[in-house]
């Protein structure tokens, strides 16, 4: 995962500022070494000491963006439980039905090599 970060960081850095001085190149690495910094929420210059702090910050961002930061704790728990049960239902349904749907879709579009040998025999006869 770290290697992934380095490569992604390199690519984006080369796009955004194409003239990096030697000082900037050395300055990049301490930031990259801070654990678990991926670009999804811009945790650019924050120093997280451990995973727990990072997750707490992510939860804080979720509260801010959905706007439930302003609600009472019991309202927060109601919203969280409704959202969690909705996501759990989505996950369960996808687990049960996605393979079946994918199989049917492949059969529909690529029936020439998805079909069973019996049907071609039936056509010849």
């Amino acid at each position, binding site marked *: 995962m770290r290697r992934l970060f380095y490569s992604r*960081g390199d690519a984006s850095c080369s796009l*955004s*500022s194409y003239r990096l001085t030697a*000082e900037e190149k050395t300055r990049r690495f301490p930031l990259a070494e801070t654990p678990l910094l991926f670009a999804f929420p811009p945790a*650019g210059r*924050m120093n997280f000491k451990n995973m727990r702090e990072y997750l707490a910050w992510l939860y804080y961002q979720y509260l801010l963006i*959905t706007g*439930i930061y302003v609600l009472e704790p019991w309202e927060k728990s109601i919203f969280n439980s409704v959202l969690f049960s909705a996501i759990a239902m989505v996950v369960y349904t996808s687990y049960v039905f996605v393979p079946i749907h994918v199989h049917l879709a492949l059969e529909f579009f690529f029936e020439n090599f998805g079909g069973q040998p019996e049907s071609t025999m039936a056509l010849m006869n």
Partner: protein
Amino acid sequence: MGSYNYLGFAENNADFLKTVADKVQRYGAGVCSTRQEIGNLNMHQELEQLVAHFLGVESSMIFGMGFATNSMNIPALVGKGCLIVSDELNHTSLILGARLSGATIRVFKHNNMHSLEKLLREAVCSGQPRTRRPWKKILIMVEGIYSMEGSVARLPEIIALKKKYKAYLYLDEAHSIGAVGPSGRGVTELFNVSPADVDVMMGTFTKSFGAAGGYIAGKKDLVDYLRSHSHSAVYASAMSPPITEQVTRAMKCIMGQDGSMEGIRRIRQLAENTRYFRAKLKDMGFIIYGDDDSPVVPVLLYMPGKVVAFAREMLERRIGVVVVGFPATPITEARARFCLSASHTREILDQVLHHMNEVGDLLCLKFSRRKRSSWPDPCKGTNSEVDS
């Protein structure tokens, strides 16, 4: 960082307030009467002359309340059969005054001169709505600095339009008087425009002068007419003596008439603070509205949840800020509004900027996509999101 104390005259210094305390002893706390009956004091007339001299106009009139200056005087100036062309983001007092007057109101897009010209052209061509008669008066209402945006009205262009279409201009300088311009005379000085071009100049003493009340200034005929026909002049009680003294003292200090360089020092300090603060915030990556000269700095927060979180975080770091949300601003454009003051020192501003940096990282408020010039940090999250 949120008070309207632009020149620092709201300070609590016993030496400076000696004359004000003296006036309280002599005249009491309030006048309890209108200007037309027994409430007219010498110091009111002196202050009116002082305000007229400060602004460079023929004469002026002061009122006890800034909001009432707008809402009670516009009905005296325009009536039914007149047209009021007002900016989208005008203050409630202007809107209330316009509605009370009974005139037709048309709104143009904020600071957009094409929209204004189109409105004026259409108004002059088609006249009143049903009878098609020409309008009796067309009054353009703008503000010097808009308090929620920090933007400055485009005065030279508005004056050119006003002359072309023969309209009148009402300029509300509540936030800009004393705060912009090389010697604090407001937006007319900022744009080098003669004050005689603006028909009605209005302002308040609440912001830069540390007092209360408002004034209307302009030609002598206009002010004499308002003295007898305005509701506020006839029925509202006069400005109270200690407040009049505070305004007089502040204005004399700004004009340099009390013999010291204090006024000019404060104006320059405010201008420097404004430039420094705005430049630093932009460099950090916040999105800021407004003109580069205006001491009102709105930092956009956008999300309603972040409004509350920002105020709390800054308060924990012992900085008080003003955050503004839905009814005053559009619901998706919540902001934190900083008002700079001449009494802010460089250390105070540096401290605030440092904490803003921390809070901006914590809450992900650095939305700006400009290339940062002073901070060579190319792998910051927002940049890589945009470019990759």
